[in-house]
């Protein structure tokens, strides 16, 4: 499935909920299914800056696709990163670079998209895309 389709799927799932509490509860649930980063990659180098909670992300190229794993010490942050990774993991680096993140707004998490918000969602997206750029460069060499 492509990034666009996955994002549409996530938007569909979230559209079932009437209020923020259900959305947050679902997001917390999704956080529990986050593909966890291997403990050895939980280093300071892999921490995403700009988050009030700690977020670690690791990227690996499998065949021609990028696979992300991550973790956070805050459960809501973990839910947010789980949603992002679901959309971006197992995709070609170029597709990740080209993807937009409008769906975050559509699932009612717009407030997390503010670049000044301390959860660093914007930093997370930037980091995932940076990995994609790095691997894309590697692939095209």
């Amino acid at each position, binding site marked *: 499935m492509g990034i666009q389709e996955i994002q549409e799927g996530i938007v569909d799932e979230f559209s079932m909920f009437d209020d923020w*509490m259900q959305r947050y509860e679902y997001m*917390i649930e999704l956080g529990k299914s986050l593909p966890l980063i291997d403990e050895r990659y939980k280093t300071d180098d892999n921490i995403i800056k700009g988050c*009030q909670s700690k977020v670690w992300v690791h990227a690996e190229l499998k065949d021609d696709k990028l696979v992300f794993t991550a973790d956070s010490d805050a459960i809501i942050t973990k839910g947010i990163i789980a949603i992002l990774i679901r959309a971006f993991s197992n995709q070609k680096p170029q597709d990740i670079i080209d993807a937009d993140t409008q769906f975050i707004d559509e699932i009612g998490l717009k407030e997390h998209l503010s670049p000044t918000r*301390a959860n660093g969602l914007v930093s997370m997206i930037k980091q995932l895309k940076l990995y994609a750029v790095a691997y894309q460069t590697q692939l095209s060499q």
Partner: protein
Amino acid sequence: MLDVTKIRADFPILSREVNGKPLVYLDNAATSQTPQQVIDVIVDYYSNYNANIHRGVHALSQEATDKYEQARQKIQKHFNIAQAHEVIFTSGTTHGINLVANGFTSLLKKGDELLVSAMEHHSNIVPWQMLCERTGAILRVIPMSREGELLMDAYHELLSDKTKLVFCNHISNALGTINPIEEIIDAAHQFGAVVLVDGAQAAPHIKADMQALDVDFYTVSAHKLCGPTGVGILYGKSDWLTKLPPYQGGGEMIAEVTFEKTTYADLPHKFEAGTPNICGGIAFGAALDYLNAIGLEEIAAYESELLKYATEQLLQIDGLKIYGTAARKTSVISFNIEGIHPYDIGTILDKLGIAVRTGHHCAQPIMDFYKIPGTVRASFSFYNTKEEVDTLVEAIRRAKAMLS
């Protein structure tokens, strides 16, 4: 007894909603809200006499100058400062501390010692570290207990003839501890050391008397006491302010300028380069009028009752731990719930219309001391109510249920 219903009516912001819920504003230690009386002064300034001060010959400039200087006198009176020129307008506490730290560059030498309390805000640590880098002076830390009280025996032992400067907050922003600054100041003076007290958190709760304290420098921000952001004062003893070199160069702070040499203006203008926050200064004065009309002692008594109630109620939540349990503290409660990140709690509380602070509160050394990533901090003001405490407690229970 305060008439809180009447007081709340003075604050327009308190009647707004956040996320569809009535706002419960419990981030007062970061910024207090502004009463209509102060907002009116700000509107009046820009509507009727906005002009640059001190240099103009026209009527508006004179009116603005008079109001600005009257505000300085109000501040002088409020803090029982001997002379009006010992009140330096700043952009806030951080500016005041940097002004002093910068000034001491030429007065310190390698090996001199500076003492800083373990519970300082970064703004009362970093400028001194920079000063140490410039001069070769050494920064030493006055330790604190698990309860969040300074270990005064250790302080007395740290003091020596090498000690040149001591800096400490009057009240800790992260823990609410009221520090024994009288003892800190007296002991430092025995060794000829200069003391700077960060009064940012104390000013809304305690009317500090500069002459009785005999403190050398004291800094305050208006936005912590119902005034606007971006303005504050540095109190300094005349002798010290005279000794320190100017911090910033520019207009207003000069006596005479030629390309060969510039002579500086007298106090306080020597430290007030450029066009100041005129409206902010005047509104700062109005904020003090507002607080004094209610009475800081009445405010402190009411807040202490709120603190007691909130502490009791919060401690009934399983797994809730309060950081900062000093015998003398103000209405600040820093807490965590076992197994839950403070950021998660803060996010859910926000959805429920409750404004609290989460994170390290610009006091990372305190978080390192307790080995925690941060806390949730609820800070109460005289316009908060017991009902709001109940709303907070209920919301925390809800957040806890969602997040566990």
